[in-house]
Every structure is written in structure tokens, then in C-alpha cells.
């Protein structure tokens, strides 16, 4: 751990330099994540014509919808990782070998690579966050103390995304490619995370399923914390569930990676 902390400044600095080198690609990625703005326009229009009641009996008017989707955009920028694509590419190209020969776990390399993209994404996310706070739209009686949970909720969300990416990426060692699995994961994410519509609009049975799956803890839960649309007690329970998913996916990643490397050792890259 001490070794890792010592090398971390260099890893982060060079990772950041790489991300700046890929700035055009990053910009395209950011543009590709503007779906919340599209959904915002659509749901605002719906809210203007219909009464929509969200969690805790709160009416979701146009302002609340705007508020919600701005938060979705900001959180999505923070909790992103693409290790699965990176791992698939390196496994197929055989360049994973070069990582395995270095005295540092490749998993740390993938995590750092995701983390160092954050500053660039924040350049886009922070102005949106300012607009978010400027607009207001919090429910009456919202507890601002909930914001203290936000860092933990964001880190938890990011770790779920990262571990899911790494676990799925590790599968590429066995099958040659796992990008389809990642695409399936993303499809489920779009439905169950609150990315396309507020989770409060789910019917009870679907909400129950969403509550079990990890996707809402990637994005929907941090968004609920940011929009202060939870009671503190409920937020703590959800935080517990989120970190349980972090632990589960962390262990799964570790197991699949270990097995993946053994398989790689057995069959070569």
C-alpha cells in the first residue's frame, strides 16, 4: 500500500496527460452522454401537461424535472469508467502481456486510467452543477445535511461502475470478447438506473426489482442524494445497500480477474 501511494502521483499525472491527449475523444464521449438533456426536455413537456407525483408525494413539475436531469448529467460524469472496453482491446491485441510484466496490478492501471479522466469531465459537469444549484427546485423541507453523504454515494457509484467494468472485462480472457455483455449491462443500466426517467415513476414491482439490482446505486441513488429527495434514514439504508454492491462486485472482480489471469497464463496472449 505504501508502495502504491508513493507511485500514485506519477500514475495520476501521466494518466491525466494521456486523457488530455485523448481530449477530442473525451469531448465526443461527453457529447454522447447528453441524453439527460434530451430526457429533460421531454419530461418537462410531459410535466407541463400532466400531474406527475414522485417520491414522498412530491409533485414533479417542469422545474423538478430540469433539476433531476441536470443532477443525472453531473453524476454520470463523475461515476464513469470504461475499463471493460480497454481490457477487451488489450486482451484481443495481446498487449495485456505488457501490463502483466510490470510490478503493479493491471487492475490498478485500469482504475487510475478511469480516475484521471475525471478532471476533464468535471470541466463540463461543474458549470451544470452550478446551474443545478442556481435553479433550486428542492422539495420543501429537504434536508441539506444529506449532501454530506454525497461524496460517499459518488465514490460508491463509481466503484460499482468500475468493478462491473473490470469483472466483465475479465470475461474477455475466456471468450475472446465481452463487449456484448457490457452492452447488455449498459442496456439494463439505462432502464434501472434512473438515467432515462426518475426511479420514483416505476410501478411498485419494477421499483422492487430496481432496488435489488446494482444499477440504481451506480447513478439513481447519488442523484437522489444530490437532489435531496430522500429522508436521511432511507438514504443511509440505500448507502448501506450501495456499499454492499461495491463489496460484492469487488469480490467478483477479484475472483474473475484471478481466474482470467490463470486462463491467460494457460493459453497465452
Amino acid at each position: 500500500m505504501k508502495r502504491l501511494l508513493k507511485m500514485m502521483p506519477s500514475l495520476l499525472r501521466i494518466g491525466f496527460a494521456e486523457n488530455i491527449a485523448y481530449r477530442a475523444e473525451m469531448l465526443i464521449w461527453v457529447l454522447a452522454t447528453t441524453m439527460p438533456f434530451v430526457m429533460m426536455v421531454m419530461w418537462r413537456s410531459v410535466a407541463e401537461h400532466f400531474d406527475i407525483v414522485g417520491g414522498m408525494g412530491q409533485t414533479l413539475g417542469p422545474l423538478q424535472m430540469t433539476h433531476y436531469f441536470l443532477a443525472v448529467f453531473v453524476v454520470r460524469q463523475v461515476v464513469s469508467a470504461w475499463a471493460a472496453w480497454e481490457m477487451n482491446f488489450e486482451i484481443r491485441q495481446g498487449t495485456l502481456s505488457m501490463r502483466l510484466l510490470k510490478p503493479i496490478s493491471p487492475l490498478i492501471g485500469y482504475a487510475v486510467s478511469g480516475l484521471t479522466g475525471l478532471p476533464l469531465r468535471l470541466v463540463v459537469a461543474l458549470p451544470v452543477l452550478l446551474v443545478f444549484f442556481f435553479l433550486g427546485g428542492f422539495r420543501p423541507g429537504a434536508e441539506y445535511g444529506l449532501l454530506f453523504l454525497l461524496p460517499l454515494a459518488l465514490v460508491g457509484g463509481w466503484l460499482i461502475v468500475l468493478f462491473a467494468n473490470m469483472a466483465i472485462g475479465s470475461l474477455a480472457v475466456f471468450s475472446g470478447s465481452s463487449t456484448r455483455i457490457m452492452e447488455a449491462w449498459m442496456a439494463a443500466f439505462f432502464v434501472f438506473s434512473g438515467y432515462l426517467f426518475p426511479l420514483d415513476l416505476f410501478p411498485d414491482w419494477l421499483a422492487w426489482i430496481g432496488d435489488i439490482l446494482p444499477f440504481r446505486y451506480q447513478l439513481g441513488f447519488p442523484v437522489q442524494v444530490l437532489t435531496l429527495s430522500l429522508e436521511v434514514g432511507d438514504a443511509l439504508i440505500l448507502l448501506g445497500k450501495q456499499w454492499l454492491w461495491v463489496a460484492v462486485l469487488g469480490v467478483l472482480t477479484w475472483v474473475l480477474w484471478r481466474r482470467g489471469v490463470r486462463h491467460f497464463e494457460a493459453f497465452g496472449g
Partner: protein
Amino acid sequence: MIEVEHLKKYYSVFRREPGLRNSLKALFRRQKTEVRAVDGLSFHIAEGKRVGFLGPNGAGKTTTLKMLSGLLYPSSGKVLVDGHLPHKRETDFLKKIILVMGQKQQLLWDLPPLETLELNRAIYEVQKPVFRKRLEALTELLDIGPQLRTPARQLSLGERMKCELAAGLIHSPKLLFLDEPTIGLDVSMQQTIREFIRSYNEKEGATLILTSHNMDDVEALCPRILVIDKGRLLFDGSVAELVAQVKPEKRIGLRFEDNKLPENLEAYGRVVSTGVGEATLQLNREEVSGVLGQLLARFAIKDLTVENPPLEEVMGELFSKHAFLRHEEGTEST
């Protein structure tokens, strides 16, 4: 430094015939074939030695290097590298080695190689003053000052390979595995890389294992060669011993005064090639001194060389003999 005993690496590959029908069939039933990439290799290499690994495509050279560097887990047998079991990939072990693959790179594509070197400095925990000293030495030896500050993607293949070597050697490894390090490079760049590798070996006392299809690399760098085919060791010794064993002839290159080629050269040996006023004869080693005496006495000779046949030819002969023997064994056993 390296001990290898009865090393084997077998693995299964799936086979599928082309066509839609076969694709559908393969969904339910896949045919597996066992590949014996390495089949009972044994050899020892002492510290500081330079050893060449030779063999045709698919001989098992890269697979062996991957087992020695810890990327592959052996099916059976023993590999010990500087007291480590490579497949455990312990930090101490990984800090002692590099594997440079001519066709794969570790340089960060969009950044100047200096950034990769700095990254390696951090990962291999090289102290900054030591790093600066080594960087200076490597920059001078490889002549890569400006290239270190140019994004890797904008460098030529040769410049990239030189930077790859610098990135691989910044932590001063004791053991170098070089897999086709001069592949795709022009002749002068090959020469530069060879000279650098030799000087690194001599200065640092590092052990070096090289695989290459380029016989010039092997002849220039490796006093000892291991020849493998189908995962088996065919020969272990020096280039000169290999030539003496497989193709025990010598070649005499002759250039005649007045650029006139005399007649009846066949009487002195097999004429391998002729040109304007020059010829190359091939004859048995023991005949060389006698024939040389006769040639010098009889003709006005401007220039004369005595050489072994090219290593490519020797290798070609060795592998064709081996293939023939394998075929014979196969025929006998059926």
C-alpha cells in the same frame, strides 16, 4: 541464472471448418486439438550470457520466452529464473526482467516516450537521481534525445524500438528477453540496436535471451544458440559448432586480377556463384588449406575470403533434415 528442465507447454485450440453449416455445428460441438508448443525442453544459462533462440515459425520460441518471463504457466517441467518461479510474478522477479517484443509495445501511444520512462521510474521505484543518470546514459547510447520528447505515434519504427529499449532498461534489469527486437527495421537501425544490446550486456553483466529470424542478429550477438523445432531442442552450442555439424563446408571467395575468371574452377570445389572476375567455391573443411595453396600458386588473386556458409542456409538444412527425420519416423510407425 536460468534452469529449465523437461519444460512442456501444451494447450488446446478450437478448430472450425469454414461455412455456415460448420459455424452452426460449432455452436453445439467444438472440435479441440492439442498443440504441443513446447515439448520437453531442458537447458541452463549462466549469468551474463547472451543466448539466441532459433527456430522456424511455430517452433515454440516465443512460448518459451513467455514461460521464462512468467506470462505463461508451464504444463509440466521446471523453470527457475534467478531463483524465482516466473509464473508467480513476484514483484522482485518482475523488477529484474524485461521482455521486449518487436511486435508489441509498452510506449504510451499519444505521449512522448519520456512519459513512459517516468511512469516506469515510478512503477519500478527507481530513485530520481539514479533515473536521471540512467536516462542520460541511455539517451546518449541510443541517440534518442529529440525522440524522447516527440509523441510515440509520430516516431518511426526504428526510433520507437530504441525508445522501447530505453523504457525497458530504465530500471536496469538483470535479464533481457528480446523477442524479434529488429523486426521491420532497416539495416543500419538493426546494426544500432545490436550494438546497443551488446554494450548493455557487457557493461551491466545482464543475461540476454534473443529470438530472431534475422540471422545477422544471432551471429552478431549470441555466442551460444539453442535451436528448437516443434517445441524440441535440436541443437545447443555455438554458431561455429552448428555450422560444422550441419553444413561442414567452407566457402572460398575469390577475386582475380584483371577481373578475368579462369576456366576449370570446378576442379577445385563446387562453384556456388560467379560474377565479373569473381567466384565462390564450396568445399570440405579439411580440403581448404590444400586447395588454397593450389589456387594461390596457379592464379593471380587480388582478394580472398574463407567463410562459413550463411547461417540461413545452415538453418534451412537443419530444419529440412529434421522434417525429413520426423517424416521417416512417422512412416516407420504407421
